[in-house]
């Protein structure tokens, strides 16, 4: 295969806060081929959103980022400000979580969708941008008249569609969706997932999808990576990982979303005690061991590295 659309090597992201250094991403490497889709799963604080934001250098100033990110052949961490501006929206675009907060309340949605096109000169004029806004709104299933609406006049599902239209404005190659369906109810979530699937197909988009809902990722992505305490702890073909997890943490996440009709989960919700560890104060050895139902002495001395656990699969657990 040709060069991957996205290649991440030994990525480390550290926030320097008042309370000391917080390592949010601690050595993540993966490749994403053109047209492929990767789901990134994990709980709050596992580093998944930090990772997504690092890919387009959207982290707060002063955040330390080391390693290598190659997106569409560009060395993201060493781009000039001009090169970075060009890469955002066109090489990669993010659909942010929280559809209400990501939109400007005092601008119409049409103006907001047109903005990246005008900034990046992908539309020659205001009127060309206006035509493209209408086309994008139609594509995401909204009437053209919605261009004149303000965000508060739209439902949650409609706002999510606006954010998708905005992300598509400059024809990005990589689309990163950070919790795009979390606040939406079941039917609207299905509508948004179907729309993303169709767009991926027709535009040959490379898709990276982030959420804690493993069942959504399994449905929407070909590959799945599970993050815990700033590292990928399991990775592989999505359905394979979901149904036959190698890492005890993945198993717990997968069991949290029961299969309707499965007698073993009827009246038997499955969970995992405790909270994810606080970045900066990780337990010694495997960071999952204090919550792991299978923990034993071998988990304590060193943090296990990701290693092969089958075809196209890897996991970071001493039991693998």
């Amino acid at each position, binding site marked *: 295969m040709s060069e991957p659309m996205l290649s991440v090597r030994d990525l480390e992201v550290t926030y320097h806060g008042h309370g000391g250094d917080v390592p949010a991403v601690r050595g993540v490497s993966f490749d994403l081929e053109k047209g492929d889709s990767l789901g990134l799963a994990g*709980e*709050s604080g596992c580093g998944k959103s930090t990772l997504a934001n690092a890919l387009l250098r959207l982290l707060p100033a002063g955040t330390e980022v080391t390693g290598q990110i190659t997106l569409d052949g560009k060395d993201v961490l060493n781009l000039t400000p001009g090169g970075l501006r060009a890469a955002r929206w066109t090489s990669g675009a993010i659909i942010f979580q929280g559809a209400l907060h990501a939109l400007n309340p005092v601008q119409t949605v049409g103006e907001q969708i047109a903005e990246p096109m005008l900034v990046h000169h992908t539309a020659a004029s205001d009127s060309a941008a206006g035509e493209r806004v209408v086309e994008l709104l139609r594509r995401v299933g909204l009437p053209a008249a919605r261009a004149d609406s303000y965000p508060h006049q739209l*439902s*949650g*599902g409609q706002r999510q569609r606006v954010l998708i239209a905005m992300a598509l404005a400059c024809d990005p190659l990589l689309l990163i969706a950070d919790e795009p369906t979390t606040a939406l*109810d*079941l*039917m*609207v*979530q*299905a*509508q948004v997932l*179907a729309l993303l699937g169709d767009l991926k197909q027709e535009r040959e988009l490379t898709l990276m999808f982030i959420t*804690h*809902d*493993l*069942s*959504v990722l*399994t*449905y929407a992505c070909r590959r799945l990576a599970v993050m815990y305490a700033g590292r990928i702890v399991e990775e592989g073909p999505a359905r394979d990982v979901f149904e036959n997890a190698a890492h005890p943490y993945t198993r*717990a*996440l997968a*069991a*949290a*979303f*029961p*299969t*309707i*009709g499965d007698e073993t*989960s*009827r*009246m*038997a*919700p*499955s*969970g*995992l*005690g*405790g*909270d*994810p560890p606080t970045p900066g104060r990780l337990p010694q050895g495997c960071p999952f061991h204090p*919550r792991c139902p299978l923990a034993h002495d071998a988990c304590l001395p060193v943090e296990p590295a990701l290693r092969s656990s089958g075809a196209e699969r890897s996991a970071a657990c001493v039991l693998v």
Partner: protein
Amino acid sequence: MRAGVTNLVEVEDLHVHFGAARAVDGASLHVSPGEVLALVGESGSGKTTLIRAIQGLQKPTSGQIRVEGEDGDAPRPKIQTIFNPSVQMVFQDPTGALNPRQTIYEIVAEGLRIRHEAGEEVERVARALSRAGLRPPERFFPLYPHEVSGGQRQRVVIAGAMVMEPRLLLADEPVASLDASIRGEILALMRRLVDETGLAILVVTHDLGLAWNIADRVAVMYLGRIVETGPTEQMLESPRHPYTRALLSVVPETREMEQQILTGEIPDPARIPSGCRFHPRCPLLQSGALPPEIAARCPTDDPGPTPVGALSAAACWAVPA
């Protein structure tokens, strides 16, 4: 008509209108001791308004709400959760529901103090915390919400409700804002409280997996009405109403089912469609598979709400009575 004196709550033909918007439009349901009823529906179906009415936070336009322990003829007090300790509420987001400047002891004791039930306060707070799985309870007394885990915070919220020794818990999306791994432990706690104390829970959710995990019965709400109700296994394994079937088909895990993604969103409750309120979005009607004499009724004749006290019913012309 009373479905039986054993019910904790009976809601009969309830209407809650806001001007022209009929948010709740003829809903009936009941909850018995020791059972979990999951009230399922999309945003805008009226499910939150319905439980706010049960709680006494929303005045019904018409219809009956009977809660055990209340005088049916007397006017209902405004805030049910304070005046009727047997109905308590658990909110969605534990971090937002807890006062960060109060200790866990003070948070849990607050309901007792508001009701001037200060007798045996320490014992009752300890019992509630311990029931909610926070043991030994004394260890949690002096802690502040930020000092415990996310799962423990939701347990504190539940303890704050349990301290009033309620018969019925109203829970609005109790795990929607929690991480996946914590979700299961909170659902397991809710089910255990029901099994061990005879508590009843009415849980509002759009999460059908939650219903499969803990609910005895499911009621599906659409545009202000219950359109199908039945035992959980029946509702989730062989639903009859086309709306329930569509909801089930889009759960990511039910992959064998052919997806029926409904277009658009729930219509404006100020403009409820004629006939069957679901007919403009109904995949069964749109498929053309219905016999013409039934298909002709859907846009004009209202199949009516599911009957009061029904254990299994679907408001659809295509479902045999």
